[in-house]
């Protein structure tokens, strides 16, 4: 179940998402100029109508000022369909009005788009992959605009290892296209002779249609296309599309999004490091486990000739060592490293022949398997066998002494 506010909000988002900015053709009626300076009217055709509003603050530059609007006039209006949530009213917010039949900006846009598309400037094959970890990134934009502030703040959060180089340019007005082109050229010369740039972001924040139109200039489009550094275009808001977006290697919906696309998130990098260490530790441990198994089978061969209780005590000792080993391994991640050296040492310790290696030996009465633990069954003249690390000694007993005799 929705509340009214919730539903109106969802409806507005759906409406704005589905339509974006569009050109709308219709006849003006019910025209009212409010004291606030806003202009309200209805746009209609022969079968339907929609409320429209043009706010005073939208833009001072208008080919056809709303003052000239009259009831009954056929116009082309550029704007966004939206829903005014408090009233649940569906309406069209107009940013630009032209007498019907002209649509000069739109026509120019469509013509240039078709021309460049035909020339292959939008081809996917020409688009280059972006670097995964760009360290030196150029930004062509106004140094005083919202775009550079957004890009800096996102980059600082995501990937402060990078360096940004701003190539200043105006991004509105008649001189803007030429300035953008020369800033892009500068960036390439800088990249070739000073610091190689991994990526270039070209753009500006949201603005009026005329402002954004700077990025529809053919010279700008060709400069972006010809740029030797991969380019992300970042112009205006989500729904604004410019010719620059089509020729760039990648389009970002906003300048902030350009920085999100350009840079990896340092949190992801940190997680990746952690994951790779955990995986490495597992693999080293698996290697040690394999050796442990091999050793176990070797131990098995060796103790084949030993009585059961001996085997038990040996394998118990081995278990103890291996458990210690495991503990050490688990601490290794946090303790960083040294534990593994211990592990190596413990592996050596768990060698079953270690006592023999140290100089101890095992003795039993000739013809018997049981190792001797005391002298109870021995008497002078008996023959015994002593097993060393390498080789066996056969001897005759000369004399037997108990511990008490010492």
């Amino acid at each position: 179940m929705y509340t009214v506010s919730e539903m109106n909000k969802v409806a507005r988002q759906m409406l704005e998402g589905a339509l974006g900015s569009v050109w709308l053709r219709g006849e003006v009626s019910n025209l009212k100029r409010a004291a606030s300076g806003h202009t309200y009217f209805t746009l209609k055709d022969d079968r339907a109508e929609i409320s429209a509003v043009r706010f005073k603050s939208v833009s001072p530059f208008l080919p056809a000022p709303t003052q000239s609007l009259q009831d009954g006039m056929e116009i082309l209006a550029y704007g966004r369909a939206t829903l005014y949530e408090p009233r649940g009213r569906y309406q069209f917010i107009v940013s630009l009005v032209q007498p019907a039949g002209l649509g000069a900006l739109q026509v120019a846009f469509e013509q240039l788009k078709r021309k460049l598309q035909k020339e292959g400037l939008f081809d996917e094959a020409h688009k280059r992959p972006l670097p995964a970890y760009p360290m030196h990134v150029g930004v062509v934009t106004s140094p005083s605009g919202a775009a550079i502030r957004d890009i800096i703040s996102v980059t600082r959060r995501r990937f402060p290892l990078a360096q940004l180089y701003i190539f200043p340019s105006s991004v509105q007005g008649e001189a803007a296209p030429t300035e953008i082109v020369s800033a892009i050229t500068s960036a390439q010369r800088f990249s070739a002779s000073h610091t190689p740039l991994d990526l270039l972001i070209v753009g500006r924040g949201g603005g009026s249609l005329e402002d954004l139109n700077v990025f529809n200039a053919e010279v700008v489009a060709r400069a972006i296309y010809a740029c030797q550094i991969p380019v992300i275009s970042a112009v205006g808001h989500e729904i604004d599309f410019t010719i620059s977006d089509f020729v760039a290697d990648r389009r970002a919906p906003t300048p902030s999004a350009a920085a999100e696309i350009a840079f990896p998130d340092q949190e992801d990098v940190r997680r990746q490091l952690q994951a790779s260490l955990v995986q490495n530790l597992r693999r080293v441990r698996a290697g040690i486990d394999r050796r442990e198994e091999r050793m176990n089978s070797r131990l098995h061969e060796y103790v084949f000739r030993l009585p059961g209780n001996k085997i038990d005590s040996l394998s118990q000792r081995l278990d103890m060592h291996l458990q210690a080993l495991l503990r050490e391994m688990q601490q290794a991640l946090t303790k960083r490293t040294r534990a593994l050296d211990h592990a190596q040492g413990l592996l050596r310790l768990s060698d079953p022949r270690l006592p023999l290696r140290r100089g101890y030996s095992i003795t039993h009465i000739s013809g018997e398997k049981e190792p001797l633990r005391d002298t109870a069954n021995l008497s002078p003249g008996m023959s015994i066998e002593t097993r060393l690390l390498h080789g066996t000694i056969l001897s005759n007993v000369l004399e037997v002494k108990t511990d008490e005799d010492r």
Partner: protein
Amino acid sequence: MKIDESLNRLEVITKRLGQEEVPLDESLALFEEGIALAAAIKTSLDEARLKVQKVLEKAKGTFAIEDFDL
């Protein structure tokens, strides 16, 4: 080493550690190398301060570079 080279090297290390025939000594050395690499990357991330500069081309190929403050 650049961060992408370090991360690539880490990947190579992980791959090598997954192979059965790696000698124990080598695998421990690789493990330590991986830890050192990861620690170096982490430190450089911890210490990183974004640097922003404004570049003006005074004459063709001659650049004036200054720190950029908002």
